[in-house]
């Protein structure tokens, strides 16, 4: 059983979705996350153990990404493999047998239409066991406020790619903090720095998806 769990974890790390997937080339025709998850469930392995295995795989690939050992395509393949597992685990989330670590609301700020960085953070955070509410791009402050109001236990992530939309990010942070002082806000994106994050009153600055996960875990630990 341990071996099966390790294999699932490895499939996530390598982005091996299923047997027919040609990627990665060195794992061609091997079983992937899809088949191995079904096998694990058939053998009676608990869904939360499978989810933990996925989290380990996502953590490893996330750390490799932080160290520039792998790049966006590898991370996306890992996310795809993770999705294959999640499709099988979905019923267990609905029954409450498996629980998420918390809620993460994410969006690209108003006036900015770039979504790759935001999507990566979204997928890696979800892959690490969080419920992600992705609001998409060009998200107005009011939309964030509305969603926070309906999810008072969430943490918020704001993304921006343009230097010119950082001003909108700053406004959104200020509005969130004014209306919901207890809600933690993480900011990130190409032009954003630690210094800028502090200046706009955000609780944290995430340089990459894995760092966003670490910040969330830190908040969770209190």
């Amino acid at each position, binding site marked *: 059983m341990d071996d099966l769990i390790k294999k699932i974890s490895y499939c996530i790390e390598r982005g091996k979705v299923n047997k027919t997937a040609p990627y990665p*080339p060195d794992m061609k025709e091997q079983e992937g996350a899809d088949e191995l998850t079904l096998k694990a469930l058939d053998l009676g392995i608990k869904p939360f153990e499978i989810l933990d295995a996925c989290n380990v795989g996502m953590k490893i690939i996330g750390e490799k990404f932080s160290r520039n050992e792998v790049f*966006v*395509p590898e991370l*996306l393949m890992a996310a795809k493999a993770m999705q294959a597992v999640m499709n099988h685990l979905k019923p267990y989330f609905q029954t409450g047998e498996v629980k998420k670590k918390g809620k993460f609301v994410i969006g690209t700020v108003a006036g900015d239409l770039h979504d*790759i960085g935001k*999507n990566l953070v979204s997928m890696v955070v979800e892959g690490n066991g969080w419920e992600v509410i992705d609001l998409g791009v060009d998200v107005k402050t009011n939309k964030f406020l509305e969603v926070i109001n309906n999810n008072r236990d969430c943490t918020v992530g704001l993304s921006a790619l343009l230097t010119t939309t950082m001003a909108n990010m700053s406004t959104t942070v200020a509005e969130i903090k004014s209306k919901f002082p207890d809600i933690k806000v993480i900011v990130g994106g190409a032009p954003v720095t630690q210094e800028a994050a502090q200046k706009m009153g955000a609780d944290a600055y995430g340089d990459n998806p894995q760092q966003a996960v670490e910040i969330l875990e830190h908040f969770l630990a209190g």
Partner: protein
Amino acid sequence: MFTIKNNGSNSLELHLTPEQITVQKEEIDSIIGYKNTEHHFSEIINQILSTLPQKITPRAGYVIINSIDYPDKKSIRLQDVIFNTEPIVTSQLKNADLMFVFLATIGNKMEKWVEELRSEGELANSYIADLIASAAAEKTADFIHDYITKEMKKNNMGVSNRYSPGYCNWHVSEQHKLFSFFPKNFCGVTLKESALMMPIKSISGIIAAGRKVKWNDYLCDTCKAKNCTYRIKNKQNKNQ
């Protein structure tokens, strides 16, 4: 090699053939971050690159402005329109005898394909196709930039680097001012209220030309945008 459509005395539009826009695998490797030319995504990148000619309809053009003024260090006036270009862009476009307000696009087939791949869950392929589409749009902008450079050389004029709203602190909303110079449906590109161009893989901006104008690298050292298209381009140029 291309057809020229003259829209009037001061504007020109080029309809390019897809084969005139070439993107090399090494360029995409470099944008992604790969240092080795052989990696697990080589085959996918090559496959997408091979389909590029069927999925682009490159067009590019410009409008020439000769009424230019610099009211201060952070703005440029073209005819009766004042652009708040901010200090970096203003300094790089100074001393112009002519300004070229340009537009370049690869059409919308690539972006539709990128969206299809994404909705099918092919995230990595979608990401790579999107990068290749962006690179192709840049190559189309390079084409019109080179065309302008050659034309200006005949008149002993130099040309500047190109600058677009949204970069170097020049606010993206100023796209609306740029588009006020273009004839309707110029190059098949339209502008949405949010300043987003449709097709998305389009580039607009300004190029200065003049006897005292010279080409300079982008001033990336003064800007904090780490993943900016032009920072990446600058780095690639320096590595060549």
